């Protein structure tokens, strides 16, 4: 019987029978924790393994601080310090990515820590973003991660798989985020509950790495385990350069079994926006255009790449952000920040009136770079707009282009490109 991509990746990491529904022990190539949950991972290890080694392999174990960076509360500062001291004592020094590094999942791609075909676990529920490079990333609780630190393995129930095939060229003002929201509009918040998605079709194939990250990042909001995109030449080349490693590229067998196969035609797809309070509450931007906004944030693991911010810079260059709008920008990683600096984009964004933060999960996590107040309307390039998630205001999710045109206009506005 043929195997799906997720079944092949798991089969590479276990000796047991990889059939959907079976639980197998799976070897983990990369074990990580971030500042959220990291301290509890350390506490679990100290409580349960007081007089033993606590880390199976210091080279394969990582801390990535990204949630509240630098710490803005004493609680976070203390938790980061607990994890930092543990990392200094037990891990390779280069495996501690401290508060300056940026979003852990992105750092792992940039540093070549995660490559296609690998298994990666951490305390970030969006770690399945690694599906963008064909790697099996998975967020878990602090007990599970402590166990992975200690043993290098985890148990996992092999998920069923489904395919989503997207064909067609979206309109020139629609981007990877609009494609992603288009999928959410089709399948809803439970559309891939407990399943692995394999994305195919020429719309997906033409996405660059940043676009693939955007699409894979919101599989969590579709209820999925992971969304896998088969790496193209560009992605393979990137991952080889970054890792200096060779890796297998898994393709599904022709007779692999899927629970369903969805075909979407996104020809001339127009810009989309998710209205509060659900990422699946998707409408065309044109339907809500004209709604005044108070704030715009371009950030997050979904849309905080250089390509996202460069597009925003291009759109606001030489212009001024609307007087009534505060615009916040958070690069995903230190590398993205450096690229912006090098290419003069920080200057362009600054001149237009934007606030530029250090890299990290600001904009989603714990109110880093600000919350919304009651009545405040915010357009975000992030992935979640649940009530209260980013404060008391209303959050709309859209592409960087829609965010930029909205920031200039002072109201939700269809980007013109």
């Amino acid at each position, binding site marked *: 019987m043929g195997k799906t991509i997720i079944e092949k990746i798991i089969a590479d990491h276990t000796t047991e029978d990889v059939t959907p529904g079976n639980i197998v022990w799976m070897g983990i190539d990369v074990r990580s924790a971030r500042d959220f949950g990291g301290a509890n991972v350390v506490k679990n290890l100290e409580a*349960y*393994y007081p007089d033993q080694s606590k880390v199976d392999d210091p080279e394969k174990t990582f801390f990535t601080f990204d949630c509240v960076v630098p710490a803005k509360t004493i609680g976070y500062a203390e938790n980061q310090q607990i994890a930092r001291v543990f990392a200094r004592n037990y891990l390779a020094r280069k495996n501690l990515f401290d508060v300056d590094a940026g979003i852990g999942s992105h750092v792992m791609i940039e540093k070549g820590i995660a490559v296609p075909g690998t298994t990666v676990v951490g305390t970030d529920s969006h770690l399945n973003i690694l599906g963008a490079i064909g790697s099996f990333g998975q967020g878990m609780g602090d007990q599970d991660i402590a166990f992975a630190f200690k043993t290098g393995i985890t148990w996992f129930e092999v998920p069923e798989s489904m395919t989503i095939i997207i064909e067609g060229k979206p309109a020139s003002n629609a981007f990877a985020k609009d494609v992603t929201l288009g999928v959410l509009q089709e399948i809803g918040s439970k559309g891939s509950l407990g399943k692995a998605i394999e994305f195919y079709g020429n719309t997906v194939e033409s996405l660059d790495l940043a676009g693939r990250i955007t699409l894979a990042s919101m599989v969590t909001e579709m209820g999925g385990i992971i969304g896998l995109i088969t790496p193209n030449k560009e992605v393979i080349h990137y991952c080889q350069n970054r890792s200096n490693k060779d890796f297998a590229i898994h393709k599904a067998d022709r007779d692999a079994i899927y629970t369903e196969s969805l075909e979407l035609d996104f020809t001339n797809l127009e810009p989309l926006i998710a209205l509060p309070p659900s990422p699946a509450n998707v409408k065309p931007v044109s339907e809500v255009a004209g709604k005044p906004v108070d704030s715009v944030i371009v950030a997050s693991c979904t849309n905080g790449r250089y390509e996202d911010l460069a597009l925003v810079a291009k759109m606001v260059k030489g212009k001024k952000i609307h007087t009534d709008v505060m615009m916040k920008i958070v690069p995903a990683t230190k590398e993205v920040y450096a690229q912006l600096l090098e290419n003069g984009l920080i200057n362009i964004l600054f001149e237009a009136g934007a606030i530029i933060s250090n890299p990290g999960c600001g904009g989603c996590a714990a109110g880093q770079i600000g919350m919304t107040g009651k009545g405040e309307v915010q357009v975000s390039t992030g992935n979640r707009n649940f009530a209260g998630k980013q404060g008391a205001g209303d959050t709309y999710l859209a592409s960087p282009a829609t965010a930029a045109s909205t920031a200039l206009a002072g109201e939700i506005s269809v980007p013109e490109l």
Partner: protein
Amino acid sequence: MKKPTTLEGRVIVIKDQNGKPIDDIDTDMIFHNKHLHITELNEMGQYTFGNLQGWESFPEKAKSGDILIVGKNFGAGSSRQQAVDCFRSLSIQMIVGESFGAIYKRNAINSGIPLMIAPEIMIDDLKTGDNIKINLITGEIFNVSNNRSLKSAIPLSKVQLDIYQAGTLFDYGRKKE
């Protein structure tokens, strides 16, 4: 010493006042979020089902060694470990249900309490107070009170058995050292 793989005990079947199974019991009904600060196992039991209408007195009714029988999608919602540990706190021997929330299932397996999926357990004529025998390896269920076999449960996976035999996920990790 190996733990038993056939368990016997009195069942408590979670149904509503009209005798219908209650599906989608979420973690807030099992162990409400107002008690989330509690980390001591022996303090958890008293709050079990504190937010499930008709079952608020479960902690007084439950006896050590009881087997809990539940319907579909039991333990939906949050990832809180206490929603599993509250039953361990009351010395509930195992949980049998028609289906479970994914994270709940993961947490139960990690804590070593046997959790079995028996897709038709609520269809069978099983009443609170009956004694059953259940085989973790074959999934066979036998009602000792009326000498009748019930429809089988899905056998425990190897992983689940390994962790159950070791104690908890962490005990299993210790043994691997």
